[in-house]
């Protein structure tokens, strides 16, 4: 390399660094643009009423819409358009418990943690807890559902329970079941439940009939709360 070329190395290095930095700056929006298709689909799903999405996701006896993520403790989480995460109990939990007399929810401004108890359902002077599917701060509570637990008949729609600002949602969602995995897992849970059914109840359920609401209470009116706790992991 001659002296002249050696000197020209400095502007060349400057250009190389500028190009590398420019590339990295441009790559971020490019990457987000390319990966954006999935998010766009999720937004569309969030706009649509939850009930409309429900029939597509039949997991045997219990349904699960495409756009919710299920926690193994039978609660669900759904990312909303405004970035908050809605939480509720899944169809399995609803049908297992059946009619609920009272509902205790966390206060707005309170904190919930993934896998920690956050919801209390009461019926027949017994209470059962359910776990929060995500970490975060509660920003809204569905007062209407707390006052009128009949809204749980629509567990993914009107029966939503509270909204959370969930900064760790991306990490939380890895612990949840979505799409085909959610249906598969729910299928497994319904099989575990079917195995517990007594032959007397079997003719209602195992011949393909839809389970009655309040299966746990039908199974064992005295200790239904214990059955529910095994499924809800509380």
């Amino acid at each position, binding site marked *: 390399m001659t002296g002249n*070329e050696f000197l020209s190395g400095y502007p*060349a290095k400057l*250009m*190389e660094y500028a190009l590398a930095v*420019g590339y990295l700056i441009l790559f971020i929006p*490019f990457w987000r643009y*390319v990966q954006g*298709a999935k998010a766009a689909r999720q937004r569309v799903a969030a706009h649509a009423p939850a009930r409309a999405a429900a029939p597509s996701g039949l997991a045997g006896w219990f349904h699960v819409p495409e756009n919710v993520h299920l926690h193994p403790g039978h609660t669900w989480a759904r990312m909303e358009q405004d970035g908050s995460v809605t939480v509720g109990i899944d169809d399995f939990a609803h049908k297992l418990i059946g009619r609920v007399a009272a509902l205790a929810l966390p206060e707005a401004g309170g904190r919930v943690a993934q896998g920690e108890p956050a919801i209390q359902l009461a019926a027949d002077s017994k209470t059962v807890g359910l776990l929060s599917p995500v970490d975060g701060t509660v920003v809204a509570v569905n007062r209407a559902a707390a006052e009128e637990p009949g809204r749980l008949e629509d567990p993914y729609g009107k029966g939503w329970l509270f909204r959370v600002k969930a900064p760790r949602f991306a990490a939380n969602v890895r612990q949840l079941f979505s799409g085909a995995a959610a249906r598969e897992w729910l299928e497994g849970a319904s099989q575990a439940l079917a195995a517990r059914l007594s032959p007397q109840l079997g003719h209602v359920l195992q011949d393909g009939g839809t389970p009655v609401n309040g299966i746990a209470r039908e199974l064992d009116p005295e200790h239904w709360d214990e059955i529910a706790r095994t499924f809800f992991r509380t």
Partner: protein
Amino acid sequence: MNSNATTAPRTWFRENILLGMSWIDYAKSLLTPFNAICAFICVVGIPLLLYRFYAGLGATTNLSQTQPWGLWIGFDMMTGIALAAGGFTIGAAVEIFNLKDYHAIERPAILTGFLGYLMAVVGLIADLGKPWNMVGIFTYNGTRSVLFEVAWCVACYTTVLFLEFAVPLFEWLGMKRFYQPLRKALLALTVLSVMFSTMHQSALGSLFIIAPGKLYPLWWSQWIYAFFFITAVVAGISMVIVESAISHRVFHAQLVGRHVDADALTLGLAKAGAVVLFAYFFLKLQGVIDAHAWGSVKGFLGAWWLVEMLGFILLPALLYAYGARNRKVKAVRVAAVIAVLGIIVNRLNVSIIAWDYANPNHYVPSWMEIWVSLTLVTIGVLAFRWIVNRMPVLHDPADLAAAGH
């Protein structure tokens, strides 16, 4: 099908080679315009290939002492090997990165790769002559030579591709004893294929490192081996998109009843293509800065370089991104075609158009060279069609069994 066909004995040969037809019906089924064109190309091309071995390079090509590499190296070898990279790209995605969705396109990708390599090797032999001397590469210990690496890797990888292709081949022949161990060995074979491909795809680029004065500065870079490897990945992804689009149209009957979401796979591949091409565009710019070659962006070759950069790298990158984001499969397919053309343009630029650019008697291939290359591509396409029509390539019997068919 006439009555003669239905009454004839249903032998294995008839079922599996003649697709259940009699000889006469089968011959009639071959009478199509596409086959007529292919037959014409081959009827002229195969004797030309033999003539080259009889009369030598001087009689058939425009090669000279100053231009020893022509179309058979630049197109058949350099381009053919890059376009056949789908085998290792998809193989690695499925077997190593566990992207099982892409399993549906693994077999056609491997078959494309295998036939691509075979045709590239035939093109190489046409260039080298004296095929019996090829054993020399295995006995001569030229470990310092890039060509030695290319020869060994291409030989080893073609063998690996054959073993991977042998899975559907033995399934078709009903030889369970052979294909089951091969099926189990598929992961190991894929690891080997990634290793060999990484080595020789980049080594094909390394061949040009020693000639900075001969190759136009905009294409020469000390990183050219990395560019060759990256473009091989792009070529692999793009060829799989193009090939699966054509397969879907041509072999539609074989895909009935299969629940593979080909559009989702195409869109997934488009994301990969977009990101790799985008990064490659900037790496190429980095190469130009590194080689202090900005001053060469002038004249015909400078303009042609810009066409390659903007039209065949940046444009397909953006089109892939647009297609992937907006779920436009057609846009992705157009991007794939442009990307494939871009790889062909790049390899021809490096090995022919921008090569030996200062020579006033620049090489232009003879019609016989072009015809032989065209013949090899045609044979590859015909072989692909023949195999796909018979062997379980577009469908894996294990998938069907799992689905309860």
